[in-house]
């Protein structure tokens, strides 16, 4: 089984870090995994994305044109990546920064006001990325909260360790968010 993930948003939303946490979690689950950043002549304030591929066997390509799970944290990413979702796949949309709209009927839409939740429940919009991973954990059923927690310890550098409890709270809130269809 090979599953593809894309996380996309503005530069500064923690997209690459969220991908790194997810990739570490798969590593801790003894899966084969590859993480690949968006790459090219990027500019500040532009969009950024990363791909994570998890596989029971060797990972093939990280640059596929279709993906099973996509997290989009802003409107530009939502516009770009809707067509990238594999048939039957899921897109998790940050409805705080993207308009709720369904243009396809062969994929699952999960609209969550991620930025708003991060601000209101966690007091910091910087928690959006990890909150989104909590949502992904529930939607995908491919990675547990426990493993994501462990992965946080791998990724977050020593001088920022004091932020881990807050991030774990973000994961839980994301996971517990009521995913009723809009």
């Amino acid at each position: 089984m090979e599953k593809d993930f894309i996380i996309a948003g503005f530069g500064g939303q923690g997209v690459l870090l969220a991908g790194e946490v997810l990739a570490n979690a798969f590593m801790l689950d003894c899966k084969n995994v590859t993480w690949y950043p968006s790459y090219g002549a990027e500019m500040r304030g532009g969009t950024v994305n990363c791909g994570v591929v998890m596989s029971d066997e060797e990972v093939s390509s990280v640059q596929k044109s279709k993906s099973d799970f996509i997290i989009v944290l802003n409107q530009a990413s939502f516009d770009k990546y809707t067509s990238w979702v594999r048939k039957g796949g899921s897109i998790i949309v940050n409805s705080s920064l993207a308009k709720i709209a369904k243009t396809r009927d062969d994929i699952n839409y999960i609209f969550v006001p991620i930025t708003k939740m991060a601000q209101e429940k966690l007091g910091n919009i910087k928690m959006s990325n990890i909150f989104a991973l909590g949502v992904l954990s529930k939607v995908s059923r491919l990675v547990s909260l426990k493993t994501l927690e462990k992965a946080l310890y791998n990724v977050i550098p020593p001088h920022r360790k004091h932020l881990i409890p807050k991030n774990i709270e973000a994961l839980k809130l994301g996971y517990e968010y009521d995913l009723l269809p809009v």
Partner: protein
Amino acid sequence: MVVECLTGTKVLMKGNYAIANAAVLAGCQCYFGYPITPQSEIGEFMSGKMQQLGRAYVSAESELAAINMVIGAVSTGVKAMSSSSSCAISLMQEALSYATSDQLPVVLVSVMRGGPGLGNIYPSQGDYNQATIGGGNGDYNIIVLAPSNVQECIDLTYKAFYLAFKYRNPTILLADGLLGQMMEPVEFYDYPYPEIDTSSWALTGAKGRDARVIRSYAPLETDQCVYVDNLFKKYKLIEENEVEYEEYMTDDAELVVAAFGSMYRNVKSAVKICREKGLKVGAFRPITLYPFPSKRLSELADRVEKFLVTEINMGQMVRDVRLAVNGKARVLFKGKAVGAMIDVEDLVEEIEKQMGGV
């Protein structure tokens, strides 16, 4: 990002950092380099780590200076390296020709990006010819190793240092922007090869012994012939002993898809899918690009009907495959100049087309 040299622990790491860590663990004493995307993390890591370990790091004024510093360092018998990319490797060609003739164990990491000219920073495999044929003058060969995942970036960095010293010959680790930038779980281990004795040739000061000269020429015509003949005796040994390749389901294959480096990953996936559809197809990957596994390809060509070579370039390795197959089978090519690897779905479609559309 903090990267430490951990032995025996699985860590998620970028290809560039993996190469740099492996070089440090292999005992590289000197790093000389000049930054260029997509391999700048190697120099970045070295700039801190080498100083920390009391080894040498020089941010050179140019690529030309960097590679010549490596020549200077290795002539004293220590392990030294540089790393760079495509258009900057071009600037090093003269020095590489000299290093082959000087018989110096230069290790160079080449992380390919788009070309020709300045090109762009997207991944590419367009420097197959640059590495295996080269742009230096004269008859020479450079050992070229091509990893296809991040773990192999470590394994083959170790091997590059070993082969360079074993044969006193420049060795290139040929990665690409994709491998350099991607993160995968890897495991480090101690340098697995024996240390090569350099006491018979290294320039270590002539105290208590006759002076030595490392030079790249013999002044007389006949002497130069002998000199180059000796180089080629060495190349023959390399070709006999060091060929490395990977094969997948080639036993009964009617079509074999060949690729090197990161492109092979998709090839293998495509072959798996085609096998499930009942197509007799296999995959082949040269790990050493020089020495090229010509003999094995020639053996395969005795029963394989077609070879399909896929590369992220306009057809470079395909020529070596054609030479190896020597007309015994059809050799087809599918590639593009630069960018993402060819999709597994596209490869499957191409394989089906070539096998008569099942």
